[in-house]
């Protein structure tokens, strides 16, 4: 496990140094959401109705756009060869890198989501469920995204193929994430949505390391 945490620490250090990757994800998230009042018009009733959807779509996009960081640069400069030969299973490598990805993107999205709720005139009653849903949903996004990132890692400029692969898998997270917030807005319990999000998270936690490791193995050849 020492190697596992070393790898996580390394990826965090790299993210911090690489032009503040984490802050850029945060700013991308905020900017995408602020584009909407500009695009859709400022009526607060309309904004409030689409708030949960817009925030979640922006979270999906922000996660997806940062996915190529997970494996790609390590493959390109040969680091992935060296990591793959380290004395730990490739499944653990994938998990460590996914964890580091979540810590530098998803975690920030969780923290920032109330702020965006304010910007989008979201009902204050829904802030709690929004944060909770984000806390359960974003790790699932990182885990599912890791599979796509690993599959396309040796494909030059695979970024857009990556989004094509990943978006269908993101749809359930989007739907139940939005569902949790909308339930709270409508005054019903968000619990069922949150439970389903939890189930999706557990499910991704099981398949992601396996599928990512298998994908990495074939891409190293």
């Amino acid at each position, binding site marked *: 496990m*020492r*190697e596992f945490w*070393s*790898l996580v*620490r*390394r990826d965090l*250090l*790299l993210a911090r*140094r*690489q032009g503040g990757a984490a802050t850029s994800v945060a700013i991308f998230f905020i900017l995408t959401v602020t584009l909407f009042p500009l695009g859709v018009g400022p009526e607060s009733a309309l904004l409030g109705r689409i708030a949960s959807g817009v925030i979640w779509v922006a979270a999906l996009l922000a996660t997806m756009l940062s996915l190529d960081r997970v494996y790609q640069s390590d493959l*390109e*400069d*040969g*680091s992935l*060869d*060296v*990591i*793959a*030969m*380290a*004395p*730990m*299973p490739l499944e653990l490598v994938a998990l460590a890198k996914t964890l580091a990805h979540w810590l530098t993107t998803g975690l920030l999205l969780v923290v920032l989501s109330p702020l965006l709720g304010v910007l989008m005139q979201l009902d204050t009653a829904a802030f709690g469920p929004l944060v909770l849903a984000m806390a359960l949903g974003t790790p699932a996004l990182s885990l599912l995204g890791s599979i796509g990132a690993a599959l396309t890692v040796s494909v030059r400029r695979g970024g857009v193929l990556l989004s094509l692969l990943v978006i269908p898998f993101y749809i359930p997270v989007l739907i139940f994430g939005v569902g949790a917030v909308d339930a709270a807005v409508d005054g019903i319990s968000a619990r069922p949505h949150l439970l389903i999000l939890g189930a999706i998270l557990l499910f991704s936690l099981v398949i992601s390391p396996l599928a990512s490791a298998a994908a990495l193995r074939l891409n*190293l*050849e």
Partner: protein
Amino acid sequence: MTRATPDDSNKSFHAEDLVCIRGERLVFSGLSFEVGAGTATLLRGPNGAGKSSLLRLVAGLLRPAAGQLRWGSESVDRDREAHRRKVRYVGHLDAIKPVLSVGENLAAWAGIYGGRAADAPVASALDTMGLSGLADLPARFLSAGQRRRLNLARLLLDPGTLWLLDEPTVSLDSDSVNRLEQAIKHHLAAGGSALIATHTDLHLENAAVLALAPARPAIDADA
């Protein structure tokens, strides 16, 4: 977790009837050789003969289309993790992060390799490759030769058993080539072994030469 020190695996490494296919083209076939403990084998052959491919095969990064890799009589496939703990691969690519300093780059590898490497003094590895003055320099400022030296310094963290070096002398000045030769000799003297692809000369006594020619490899034992 057992550690691979030269002692606990005093067996020679064998390859038998290896076949390598890349991009659906046959690179070589029927290749057999042995790398004994304490010996080095130089891999030679024209461009495209398959030297880099062979090294990646032995490293476990490529799977052979046919053939076997063994430590003594034990197949590598039986325990791939043990194999990984024994081999150290330095390829064409640098595995250097430009945003980290020279020291941080090496420290990161030391952590990830765990075991002996985690406690290995990064400073002494840098020193051996003549990089001690540059430890705090961001790696993006390194010249081509300095980058390669940093990459080679990784070997010294935890030397493992079998070194797989792909054209290690590229971009190195003559002083650095000497340092590399010393490091290899030291590794061999400690019971390690090495398989080295190179187009230039490396001064290693008693090194076997494995000449690779597509589909017709041959081994002669001289320096």
